[in-house]
């Protein structure tokens, strides 16, 4: 959206506006699971895309105790299962949006509804899950698009988010898009440490007037260097801290919650999710992680194509920013972002699509389909919104495909789930039929029924 304006100022002016908001937030979504829900479901006569093998015609999927109990062409239907005839329909794993601010931001312009970005530059100890609001209206709206789990990512911006994001933004949490409480919604509390790779920012140089509005380059470069030095320092201190933890008893060193939060990072147990778009920043981030021996996932990656060989050789996966944004530069080909997924795929770089937003999360499938239109093989596009994000964030033993033993996050559609006009008919989260109702549908029904004045 080219009209993005960095203003933190307007947040201050909107406290009044929240008066409108509270009734809306209190109107709770229909949470799941219901108390009297059946123990097992059998979805029969569907075409099943397990994404773990060839599609199954006229297949059966059994769900029990929240998990997929069986899937195949010749599967017996258990006596106690509620049978859903899915003839003419198709079954897929639910989609997985790996960068959102779900539950962390309700209305971008109203600061009291925004918990997505902590103040300050280094916040490794804050965890997204803590601030996820299970009653957010974005959750049921997003479900309707066939998305069953997302990462809530702190300090990840968003289309209607403004202001700086800090360098170490906090820990991203994997959440189900349903649950009575945050605990119900938790898929994994901490899946990645967010880093916004510093940029050399002189703010603006207006080519229309050829006037500089902000600081000179060398100053900006110095700030960049300072931030990278600070980041390095944080990592090195965390490494010393980890050593101290390993060699001393708890009484022998002073606890530091921020350093403690970075210990899994320096031990290689928690990847860095590094936001960077331009090739210069991406390359610097990769060099940094190489040097520090850290696990890296790239987010954004508008110019990942320039470093595709490096990304492949280092096995660094990418969460791609929506292609429904303009190319970075005026002289980029008009389809630069649209054709990038095909290029990365051909080069063997693993990637997932992300919405990087809340209210646009429902465009995830559209985004993937657009990549197909510009050359990405369809199966890869489908996996890039299901299996690949699960693999990238270490959750593929639980979600991402339809296989026995996995968590039953399942969608039943009347067609290609990436296509704009397809509809989700049933949606299961943790094996429970989950409501496809939402605030928008209710407003639709209410005003469709308005009598003529």
């Amino acid at each position, binding site marked *: 959206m080219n*009209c*993005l304006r960095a203003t933190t100022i307007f947040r201050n002016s*909107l406290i009044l506006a929240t008066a409108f908001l509270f009734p809306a937030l209190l109107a709770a979504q229909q949470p799941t699971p219901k108390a009297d829900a059946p123990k097992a479901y059998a979805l029969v006569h569907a075409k099943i895309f397990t994404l773990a093998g060839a599609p199954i015609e006229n297949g059966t999927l059994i769900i029990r105790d929240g998990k997929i109990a069986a899937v195949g062409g010749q599967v017996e239907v258990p006596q106690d299962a509620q049978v859903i005839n899915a003839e003419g329909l198709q079954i897929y794993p639910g989609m997985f949006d790996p960068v959102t601010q779900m539950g962390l931001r309700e209305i971008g312009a109203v600061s009291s509804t925004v918990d997505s970005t902590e103040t300050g530059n280094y916040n490794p100890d804050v965890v997204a899950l803590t601030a996820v609001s299970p009653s957010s209206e974005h959750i049921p709206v997003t479900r309707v698009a066939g998305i069953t789990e997302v990462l809530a990512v702190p300090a990840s911006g968003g*289309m*209607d988010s403004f*202001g700086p994001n800090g360098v170490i933004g906090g820990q991203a949490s994997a959440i189900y898009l349903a649950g009575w409480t945050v605990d119900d919604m938790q898929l994994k509390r901490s899946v990645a440490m967010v880093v916004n790779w510093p940029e050399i920012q002189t703010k603006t*140089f207006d080519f229309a007037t050829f006037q500089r509005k902000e600081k000179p380059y060398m100053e900006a470069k110095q700030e960049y260097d300072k931030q990278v030095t600070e980041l390095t320092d944080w990592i090195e201190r965390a490494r010393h801290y980890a050593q101290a933890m390993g060699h001393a008893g708890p009484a022998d060193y002073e606890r530091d919650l921020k350093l403690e939060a970075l210990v899994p990072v320096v031990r290689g147990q928690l990847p860095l999710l590094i936001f960077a778009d331009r090739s210069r920043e991406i390359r610097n981030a990769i060099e940094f992680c190489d040097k520090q021996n850290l696990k890296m996932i790239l987010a954004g990656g508008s110019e990942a194509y320039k470093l595709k060989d490096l990304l492949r050789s280092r096995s660094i996966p990418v969460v791609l920013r929506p292609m429904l*944004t303009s190319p970075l530069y005026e002289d980029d080909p008009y389809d630069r972002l649209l054709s990038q997924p095909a290029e990365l795929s051909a080069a063997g770089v693993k990637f997932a699509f992300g919405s990087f937003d*809340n209210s646009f999360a429902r465009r995830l499938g559209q985004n993937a389909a657009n990549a197909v239109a510009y050359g990405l093989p369809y199966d890869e596009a489908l996996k890039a919104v299901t299996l690949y994000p699960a693999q990238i964030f270490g959750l593929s033993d639980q979600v991402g495909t339809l296989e026995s033993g996995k968590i039953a996050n399942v969608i039943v559609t009347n067609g290609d789930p990436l296509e704009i*006009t397809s509809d989700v008919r049933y949606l299961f989260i943790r094996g429970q039929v989950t409501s496809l109702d939402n605030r928008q549908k209710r407003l639709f029904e209410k005003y469709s029924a308005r009598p003529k004045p």
Partner: protein
Amino acid sequence: MKAARAGNALLKAFAVIVVLHFLMALGVLAANPPDAKAPAILLIQNATILTVSHGTIEHGSILIRDGKIAEVGQSIAKPQGAEVIDANGQFVMPGIIDCHSHIAVDGSVNEGSVSVSSMVNIADVLNPDDIDIYRDLAGGVTVANVLHGSANSIGGQTVVIKLRWGAPASRLPFEGALPGIKFALGENPKRSNFSIRGQEKRYPATRMGVEETIRAAFTEARDYKSKWDDYNKRTSAGEKNLIPPRRDLRLDPLVEVLEGKRYVHAHCYREDEILMLLRVAKEFGFKVRTFQHVLEGYKVADEIAAAGAGASTFSDWWAYKVEAYDAIPYNAAIMTRRGVLVSINSDDAEEATHLNQEAAKSIRYGGLSREEALKMITINPAMQLGIDKRVGSIDVGKDADLVIYNHDPLSAYAVVQKTLIDGRVYFDRTRDIAERADREKEKKALTEKEKKSAEKKSEEKKPEEKRQNEKKPDDKPKPPQSGRGSTADESDGVGSAADSDRGAL
């Protein structure tokens, strides 16, 4: 030493970028310059033709003469000398009309310093080199309603353009299209989201004040008009030596509104403000041509329909501010069902590149038919802009503004292959791709040349000059949207944000 060298290299790189941008502005590196002129006779064959006005023609042909559609049908014999586009397996539809755009504008779209800025005109600041013209063409857009921003209750004058990439600014406006004026209601004109601490608030700061600002302006305009009417009447009755009323550039466009010579395009969100403007319009006897965004239009669709106003809305934007919290993707469908003339617009250069997909969302959300969805980006916006006799459907006599897709355009898998305006190909995907290598080569050569000349210059410079040079401002322009909010090019709040809407707020 090392750091200084690195700094120098960056400076040079920056200089190169500056020059490249300058060259691009001159059109040296302009993407895909269009053909010198349109062929006199052009025949598009074997296409699935979505006429919008009279159904779909399979394996059909369109004959174009001198930029106009001369014949549409199942089979048309190739006239002598006709150029042929074989669109076998492809889909042709009317060029997309974007009823809310801010492309091709030089600088800010908001004269936000005053509450009534009717004296300024977007037509005066058209920039034909804006790359977004080309990008939107590549998304099938042929006509755009280029609007002033939404900082003011009554904003600036607006202009309808054809996306004739490569033509000078004087050739962009749609010939004969009535001009418009932007109004804005709600959070943006009351500057809810733009307060700067320590700065006095501009009137109006409430929806009450927005109404009064509009009523006050039209009260003035009505008095001003009656003075002119009186003067004209007496002059034509033969009275001599009368002093004419003093001309008021702010009120002239409002008089045109009262006389039905200028369309009102009113940015709005909430149901109450929509009804407010309808009341004010009735009081002063003018029409609201379109409500723009109109995200709560579904709540008062009957009233909008009864007033004969159009509605131009987003497909699925919501929740970016309070007045967009009740926005629903069913909006277009409900309004259509209740008899409102509805279009889907972009308000954004990138969104405009897939309006076909955005229109398709109303099939899923609200159950519109394929035909109804297509109309919302073709004939409906054409009617809203009063240009439906010229564009908006594939009919004999209309301008040959056409888009050719490789796939059903109401799908996320469709890619624009060609875009024609007045029978001339302004975008051709095959050609765009074929020319990329050459453009890349040209850019490299220019970069090399510039590097060399920068090196030469820096060698010639005296030491103190060099130091000065190092302190010079420099940076590449920030990517327009890394989505991280930190790179905004206009962060001064009042008077800078483009339109309201998403992001712009």
